[in-house]
């Protein structure tokens, strides 16, 4: 008898929890899962049933270059974001609270500023007669203006800037959680600054690096605005390709296939992160 009662109680509790999740689940189901499934269906049904959309997408060098561009830009943006973001996150973590609040506010304010405005600002800065080129030429470092927009260099610069907060914020949280006494212990064990960093600080902040890197990489893979404005037509990225299929060519089959390839890659990366960098697993 007692067992039955206990099971019943557990069941009720679970149903209760599920109830709270229901609105969010419905929202995701209707506005995410259903459209994705529809895309999947259209990618294998249009213009006629079969996998020919995927064959075209993965078989043509033009499209493969788009994939290559996308992964390369996302990879470089991720790498540069971490290299630039790590010292910032570390400083934020060790700064006195009143200073770190100000710096954090600046970082977050930049995130709240309109994305288009920020991207156009980069166009102005990076163009042939922009501030960057003029300064470099004025200093005599270059004779000819550098081509900084309408190519992947511009895309990388613009996207790195936009992605930085997504690296800094999780990293700062992880670094803040590291007990400074552990670093003191490392110092007394004989580790200099560099060894403290390589052997203790970096391994301990790895979950933050992984979280930030995944976020930036995945967001970069599907990014549209910045590549569309700062990139040239010659160096298309995946999101632009999807937009072109759907908007200009009205080819939902190819658009869906491209979007799904992107989704599969993203999910695979997420799975890798869960497997190797899940803090709950204690690694």
């Amino acid at each position, binding site marked *: 008898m007692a067992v039955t009662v206990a099971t019943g109680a557990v069941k009720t509790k679970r149903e209760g929890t599920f109830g709270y999740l229901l609105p969010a689940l419905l929202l995701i189901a209707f506005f995410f899962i259903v459209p994705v499934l529809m895309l999947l269906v259209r990618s294998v049904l249009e213009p006629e049933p079969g996998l020919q959309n995927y064959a075209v997408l993965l078989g043509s060098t033009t499209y493969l270059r788009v994939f290559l561009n996308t992964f390369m830009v996302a990879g470089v943006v991720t790498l540069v974001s971490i290299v630039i973001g790590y010292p910032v996150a570390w400083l934020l973590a060790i700064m006195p609270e009143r200073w770190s609040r100000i710096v954090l506010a600046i970082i977050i304010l930049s995130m709240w500023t309109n994305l288009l405005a920020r991207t156009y600002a980069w166009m102005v800065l990076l163009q042939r007669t922009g501030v960057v080129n003029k300064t470099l030429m004025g200093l005599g470092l270059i004779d000819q203006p550098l081509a900084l927009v309408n190519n992947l260099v511009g895309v990388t610069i613009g996207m790195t800037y936009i992605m930085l907060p997504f690296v800094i914020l999780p990293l700062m949280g992880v670094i803040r959680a590291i007990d400074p006494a552990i670093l003191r212990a490392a110092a*007394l064990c004989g580790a*200099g600054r560099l060894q403290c960093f390589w052997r203790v600080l970096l391994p301990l902040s790895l979950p933050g690096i992984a979280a930030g890197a995944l976020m930036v990489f995945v967001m970069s893979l599907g990014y549209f605005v910045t590549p569309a404005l700062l990139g040239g037509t010659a160096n298309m990225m995946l999101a632009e390709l999807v937009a072109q299929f759907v908007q200009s060519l009205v080819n939902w089959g190819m658009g869906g296939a491209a979007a799904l390839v992107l989704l599969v890659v993203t999910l695979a990366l997420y799975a890798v992160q869960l497997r190797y960098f899940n803090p709950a697993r*204690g690694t």
Partner: protein
Amino acid sequence: MTQPFLSIRGIRKTYGTVTAVKSVGMDIAEGEFMTFLGPSGSGKSTTLYILAGFQDPTDGDILLKGRSLLSTPSHKRNIGMVFQRYTLFPHLSVGENVAFPLRIRRRPQAEIAERVKAALKLVRLEGFEDRMPANMSGGQQQRVALARALVYNPPVLLMDEPLSALDKKLREEIQFEIRRIHQETGVTILYVTHDQEEALRLSDRIAVFSQGEIDQIGTGPELYSNPATRFVAGFIGDSNFLDATVVASHAGKAKLSLGDGAVVEDVPLHGASTASGKASLMLRPERLSLSRASVPSGIAVTVRDITFLGNNVEVSTATSAGADLSVRLPFGHEAISSLARGEKAWLTFDTASAHAFA
């Protein structure tokens, strides 16, 4: 003349207008177990951190074997330290934690393996090499931290309240281990604690810190039987304090009036007596005798409470002036059989065991 092994000289540390350490100096012999004892904020931890190189003193110097340590950064001081909090590297196994200082020193692999094994044996954690720190108890983690701090044979080991996070029973067990390890390795230990019992149990000598200064340095028995200040008397062992007036003093002994006409003579007097003659008379609860018959030279008191403490019985009493005096007597002592609350009693003591602080 042999130079002291470790010499702390006139250390002072200020933060802006706040003075954390006023003036701390002492010499420590090789192999000595020296404890810094004091309440929080007394400057004992700051002094230890200056030794570790985490902070620079405003003034003063620290000499190890005659050479100043101050210009050497922490990681080159070759000093071992165990911290109050758990500071094992969470991403490394126990074996790798202990090996860490040796890897930094680029010792050969075979030597590392051998020394890690020996260090873990020393703290009785043989075979725990592959455990992760997260899967160990607090006591075990502190033992590993001890092994990590000793594996490179540092000349000095600093310990900053390493047992304060552990429960009492475990604390006593590890205190015993620390004593054994001190005897086995002969390492010089500087130990910080606010627990007088821990200090007495572990140390060769104790430096009692109060408000950024050392009130007294001595062995446990010295501090207990001859405290230099009222603060030391209150911190080492239990004590009662009675207001008294110095009537006369000569050669470090005083004649005191306790009011009510009670007068005691030949009490050791510490500190320069003031014009008012006001002083504090310190009486150890275990050095007081209780008599139920009137004693002319005794202090008349009323029994307030009787507490059974196992092998001792504590009798709380109050003088007619309202001062509390507790008396500790062995269980079964005839003076306390059928003693009741509210009863009158007289306390007497050997004047040599009492101390007056002006």
